[in-house]
């Protein structure tokens, strides 16, 4: 029977949760890198034993760890994330120019077919790639040097590149999202970039439908429909059916269209999941009730999923990289909270249970199906 490995990054280390394909009994292992922030922990689609972790902390900076044995042992690999060429400036919170300054890696995206190739999204926003298993990192400079770059301003969490999608069909197509610059697409493996924010409306910026400046929280895609993208923006849930060229809002009957993660069912490309959060100043579920919302119609019409989730006195948040799906026949859904719970559903969201309740605040959740 297949197994499942859930990779959890937290404020104080990494945890690995494993189960067989029934997903009923779980083993919790960790912490790895105890005391360090693990912004993202993920595995290679081409080799499930190849894992990458973004390890950082206020004291000792950024490290990248690699495992070649499914997380049993780890090797520190390269952490030389240099801005190539002229560093340039973006806008600071007060509107003054400020030189790009590396702070951390938010997201690691391994290649779909080469375990040694992995992309990294940085704060301040930049995209890096390594082709040697994380030893050496090269910046894809055209993104940071985009003509709109000097106008990018950080969101409250920093000027972070937090989403990277490597298109499964178009070999050289990459999507990224940056808070608070917006979404961008490259069709030439990062040589040039196109802002793809048409249709986004953001009341927090002077020109609500500006070319850039939108606080995109997360984007997801189903591999069978690569031109369809789903987005959770600071406010609003949106979809695009033309590879990001145009977006339309599909928030529909959500109790709040603010949130961070968005995920798509592994086998139903029009079934999507979000976790509504009350507002950008409160950052907890409406009415203290933790509800995942599912749309089976690709948006607009949403149903609350509550069975097994706390329906009173719940004031946690769910970060943008903290929701994932597995690819077993009955799709599993997983998410982690700032309260340290990792919940899962083994039936597409109808029923939920905690795998573990008392981890440090969860920053990221990824899942692997093992042979």
């Amino acid at each position, binding site marked *: 029977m297949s197994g499942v490995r859930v990779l959890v990054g937290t404020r104080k280390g990494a945890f690995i949760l494993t189960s067989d394909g029934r997903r009923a009994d779980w083993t919790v292992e960790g912490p790895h890198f105890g005391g360090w922030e693990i912004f993202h922990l993920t595995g290679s689609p081409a080799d499930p034993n190849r894992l990458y972790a973004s390890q950082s902390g*206020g*004291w*000792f900076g950024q*490290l990248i760890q690699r495992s070649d044995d499914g997380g049993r042992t780890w090797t520190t690999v390269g*952490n*030389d994330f*240099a801005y190539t060429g002229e560093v340039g400036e973006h806008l600071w919170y007060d509107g003054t120019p400020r030189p790009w300054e590396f702070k951390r890696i938010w997201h690691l995206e391994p290649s779909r077919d080469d375990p040694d190739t992995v992309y990294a999204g940085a704060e301040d926003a930049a995209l890096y790639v390594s082709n040697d298993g994380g030893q050496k990192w090269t910046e894809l400079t055209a993104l940071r040097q985009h003509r709109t770059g000097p106008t990018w301003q950080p969101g409250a969490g920093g000027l972070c590149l937090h989403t990277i999608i490597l298109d499964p069909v178009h070999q050289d197509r990459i999507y990224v999202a940056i808070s608070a610059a917006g979404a961008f697409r490259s069709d030439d493996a990062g040589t040039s970039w196109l802002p793809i924010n048409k249709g986004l409306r953001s009341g927090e910026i002077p020109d609500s439908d500006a070319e850039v400046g939108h606080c995109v929280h997360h984007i997801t895609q189903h591999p069978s429909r690569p031109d369809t993208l789903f987005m959770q923006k600071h406010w609003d849930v949106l979809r695009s059916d033309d590879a990001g060229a145009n977006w339309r809002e599909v928030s529909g009957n959500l109790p709040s269209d603010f949130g961070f993660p968005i995920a798509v069912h592994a086998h139903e490309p029009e079934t999507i999941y979000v976790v509504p959060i009350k507002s950008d100043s409160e950052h907890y579920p409406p009415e203290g009730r933790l509800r995942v919302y599912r749309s089976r119609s690709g948006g607009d019409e949403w149903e609350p999923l509550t069975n097994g989730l706390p329906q009173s006195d719940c004031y946690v948040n769910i970060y943008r990289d903290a929701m994932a799906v597995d690819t077993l026949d009955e799709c599993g859904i997983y998410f982690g909270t700032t309260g340290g719970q990792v919940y899962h559903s083994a039936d597409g969201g109808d029923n939920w249970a905690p795998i573990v309740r008392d981890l440090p605040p969860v920053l990221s959740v990824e899942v692997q199906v093992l042979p």
Partner: protein
Amino acid sequence: MIRVVLPAHLKTLAKVTGEVRLEVTGPQAGPVTQRLVLDALEARYPMLLGTIRDRHSGKRRAFVRFYACEEDLSNSSPDTPLPERVASGAEPYIILGAMAGG
């Protein structure tokens, strides 16, 4: 022989226990400096690159401090000779994470 004390997180990262002992010699047998000690430390333990000082500017990370002989050397020039008792190995050169976070 220079004795170096690392903070717990960096000991774990470098896979060492206790003090690190380094042979450090200045150019033309000149004085031992903080820069030379950190260069030797990073050469022996490359996983520490970037954790104590910035990889490019060489500046000490904000929440890392350097102590020796009951003195705070954190803001001293990296090229200032270290105290003789550190250079001779009688006293350790201490790298630590500053108290922070309340």
